[in-house]
């Protein structure tokens, strides 16, 4: 028998029976708790532990009932495989014994029994580790069991921290030694009185609690988000490229196809309306037309305005003797806000006029009675430039050297000549006019022919009761030395930028009037104070076949008629008298009278020259006479405005004005005739309104009243024709504003036979006047007779 066999055989044998041959006690080569067993297939079947079927290497454990094993051992006695383990089985405390299939024959047999409880437990538990976590969970959900508290030393800390009475509280009773019922005095004591009265606990910085401020230096650099860098490449393959192209076009058939398509028809229909509207718009009106610019170019001219001080300021200024320089300002329409030229004058200018033969020469009458001359020939180009450019005028850099802002300054023209103060008027010059180039006047006032056909003489009037004739030429007696005379004209004509043109240098400050006409009063002694005058313009009939007179030696420079310094007053005898010049003046005076006087001086008995008595004087206006314009159509018709009326006079009618207007509410300040219509004239009022009168339509009231054209008194009205279609009226007011109006066509185009009708009208009025006067005289005589009759009675 193999050594193992006896063991199993030993198991099989019942206990009481002695084995035939006690198996040699072999040292078990297995742990005590393990009992290897060999199980035959029959046994395996019996206990349902067939190897590799019921029990495998994965589940090698099988619990066998102890009772079954004992029964098997009883039934099969020695044959039972369990007999060697009989004792162990019997000793086994539990009812079930673990049988383990040992595939690997660890203990020598393919099965073994686990005979101790601990081993069984151990064998069972390790192979079932997965059951443990489940068991733990089960533990957590259970309510915790009360356990013994294990001290870890925390109660010691608590004990240390807690405050406990170490001893019993002691009690004291104190009694103050004092008399009973003594009065008690309670008082207040300020805690601040005593040093120790209060103890403050100010807060202080405890160094133990300071927070250390740790600084660390670290550098930061800002990196740009944008970085540009460039690289250069070599143009290795030099090749110029160009493209040539040709416009795409349709062939004829394609074009025809398109044109005939439906789409094209629709297109045409939809588009035609828009296009026609746009085309017609163009025809109707040009929206881009700049009216103001067109106005400027149409006018093409410059307006010159003399600005004077207002009345109120004048009174102030009269006390202070210093004279303020004032200016005549030239405006151009292309730049209405900036003056183009300034003519400097020593005092306010009340009246000025351009020379008819030479528009570069201007004469002005000052407030202090002096006559002033300017020559703007140097600035004419400047003005023309201003007109044409229409932009901000930049002064010619040659003209001003000392001015810093050359571009913004307007050129100032200094006066050429000013009359001698002693010989000027003693009162402001209210009117100044050039004599027409057709005639000139001698010292006696006799009109003679004007050889050079230039205006050389000026007439001025002033409320100092005199009218003066001035000549811009020097009298013969004041001949300049030959050297000066022989100066070449070129030198003279050239002007240094700063200096004043030398045109009238000969006159400067020494200018004396040619002759003086006084205005003695007709009825009383005394004189009239003229404000405005008007003489008839003489258009001479030239006798071209006249033999030219022998010229004076001074008249060498006749080629340059402008050279006034070389001109000399001709001696009276050389020139022929012009007989048919009307030498009579109409004068409007301060008192509202119209005086008709002949300016020719007469020699009275003593040989002195004196003025003739006025031929006529009428007091029509109640106030100052403002204007005396002569009608441009009828040489003998004059309009006078003043006070609250205006009157129309005809030269030759000595009895009075042929037409007198009704008194109006506002004072008439200016009057002027229309340049194109004989019967139309404009009256300006002191409330800033303009009345348009048409004598043929209505004689008693204006046909149009443009009320409140400005808010101030209208100081002057001047009509101007720029083009046959454009007629303008320039109106100035007391505020210093110039208004330019366009005269509507209705007032420009004369009606049929207007002048003829007007002439008839004037005739009618004349006869009416005569009739009236006659009747008045008649009535007067009747009155006288009646008076005499009553006196007699």
């Amino acid at each position, binding site marked *: 028998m193999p050594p193992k066999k006896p063991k199993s055989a030993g198991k099989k044998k019942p206990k009481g029976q002695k084995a035939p041959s006690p198996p040699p006690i072999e040292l078990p080569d297995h742990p005590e708790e393990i009992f290897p067993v060999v199980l035959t297939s029959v046994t395996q079947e019996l206990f349902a532990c067939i190897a590799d079927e019921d029990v495998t290497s994965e589940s090698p454990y099988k619990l066998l009932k102890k009772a079954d094993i004992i029964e098997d051992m009883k039934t099969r006695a020695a044959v039972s495989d369990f007999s060697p383990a009989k004792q162990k089985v019997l000793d086994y405390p539990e009812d079930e014994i673990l049988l383990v299939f040992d595939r690997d024959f660890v203990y020598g047999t393919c099965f073994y029994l686990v005979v101790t409880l601990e081993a069984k437990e151990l064998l069972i538990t390790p192979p079932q580790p997965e059951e443990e976590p489940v068991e733990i969970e089960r533990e957590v959900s259970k309510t915790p069991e009360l356990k013994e508290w294990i001290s870890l030393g925390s109660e010691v800390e608590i004990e240390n921290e807690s405050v406990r009475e170490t001893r019993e509280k002691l009690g004291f009773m104190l009694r103050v030694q004092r008399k009973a019922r003594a009065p008690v005095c309670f008082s207040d004591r300020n805690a601040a009185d005593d040093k120790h009265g209060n103890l403050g606990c100010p807060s202080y910085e405890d160094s133990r609690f300071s927070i250390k401020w740790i600084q660390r230096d670290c550098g930061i650099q800002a990196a740009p988000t944008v970085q540009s860098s460039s690289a250069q490449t070599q143009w290795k393959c030099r090749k110029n490229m160009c493209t040539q192209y040709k*416009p*795409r*076009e*349709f062939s004829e058939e394609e*074009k*025809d196809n*398109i*044109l*005939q398509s439906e*789409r*094209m*028809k629709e*297109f*045409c*229909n*939809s*588009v*035609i309306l*828009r*296009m*026609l509207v*746009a*085309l*017609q718009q*163009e*025809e109707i009106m*040009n929206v*881009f*037309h700049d009216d103001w610019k067109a106005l400027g170019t149409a006018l093409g001219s410059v307006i010159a305005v003399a600005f004077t001080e207002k009345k109120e300021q004048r009174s102030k200024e009269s006390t202070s003797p210093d004279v303020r320089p004032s200016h005549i300002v030239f405006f151009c329409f292309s730049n209405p806000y900036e003056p183009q030229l300034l003519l400097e004058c020593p005092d306010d200018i009340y009246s000025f006029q351009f020379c008819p033969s030479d528009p570069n020469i201007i004469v002005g009458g000052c407030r202090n009675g002096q006559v002033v001359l300017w020559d703007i020939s140097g600035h004419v180009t400047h003005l023309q430039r201003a007109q044409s450019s229409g932009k901000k005028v930049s002064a010619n850099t040659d003209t001003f050297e000392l001015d810093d802002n050359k571009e913004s300054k307007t050129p100032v023209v200094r006066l050429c000549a000013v009359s001698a103060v002693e010989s000027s008027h003693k009162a402001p010059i209210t009117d100044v006019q050039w004599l027409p180039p057709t005639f000139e006047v001698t010292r006696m006032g006799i009109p003679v022919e004007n050889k050079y056909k230039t205006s050389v003489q000026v007439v001025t009037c002033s409320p100092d009761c005199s009218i003066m004739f001035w000549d811009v030429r020097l009298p013969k007696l004041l001949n300049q030395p030959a050297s000066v005379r022989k100066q070449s004209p070129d030198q003279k004509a050239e002007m240094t930028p700063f200096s004043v043109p030398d045109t009238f240098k000969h006159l400067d400050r020494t200018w004396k009037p040619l002759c003086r006409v006084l205005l003695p009063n007709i009825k009383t002694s005394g004189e009239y104070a003229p404000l405005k005058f008007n003489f008839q313009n003489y258009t001479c009939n030239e006798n071209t076949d006249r033999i030219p007179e022998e010229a004076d030696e001074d008249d060498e420079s006749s080629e340059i008629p402008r050279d006034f310094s070389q001109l000399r007053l001709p001696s009276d005898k050389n020139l022929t008298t012009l007989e048919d010049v009307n030498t009579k003046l109409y004068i409007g005076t301060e008192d509202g009278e119209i005086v008709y006087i002949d300016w020719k001086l007469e020699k009275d008995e003593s040989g002195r020259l004196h003025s003739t008595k006025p031929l006529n004087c009428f007091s029509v206006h109640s106030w100052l006479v403002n204007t005396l314009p002569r009608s441009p159509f009828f040489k003998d018709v004059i309009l006078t405005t003043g006070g609250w009326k205006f009157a129309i006079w005809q030269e030759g009618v000595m009895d009075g004005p042929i037409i007198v207007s009704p008194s109006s509410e506002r004072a008439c300040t200016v009057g002027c005739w229309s340049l194109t219509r004989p019967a139309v004239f404009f009256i300006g009022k002191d409330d800033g309104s303009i009345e348009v009168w048409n004598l043929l339509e209505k004689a008693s009231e204006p046909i149009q009243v443009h009320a409140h054209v400005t808010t101030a008194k209208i100081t002057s009205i001047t009509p101007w024709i720029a083009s046959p279609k454009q007629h303008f009226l320039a109106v100035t007011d007391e505020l210093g504003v110039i208004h330019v109006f366009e005269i509507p066509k209705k007032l420009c185009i004369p009606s049929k036979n207007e002048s003829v009708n007007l002439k008839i009208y004037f005739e009618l009025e004349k006869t009416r006047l005569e009739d009236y006067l006659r009747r008045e005289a008649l009535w007067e005589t009747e009155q006288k007779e009646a008076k005499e009759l009553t006196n007699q009675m």
Partner: protein
Amino acid sequence: MAEVEETLKRIQGQKGVQGIIIVNSEGIPVKTTLDNSSTVQYAGLIHQLVMKARSTVRDIDPQNDLTFLRIRSKKNEIMIAPDKDYFLIVIQNPSD
């Protein structure tokens, strides 16, 4: 064909009209009253301008569209009426 002719005649009858060009949407002239070189030049340049103008109008408001374009120059005025497929270009000399 007759429609086109009629349109051209009506436009030509207006005062100051110097030339008329009908251009398709790509800028190729279809019908013209001017000479070839001017037509081609006008067509090419104006086509680009109209495209730009139209895209401008539509960018600002997608519901909007260009209906008419007028270019006023010193010497004349160019009027362009765009449509879906074609443009009509008219050059007029406005009377001052």
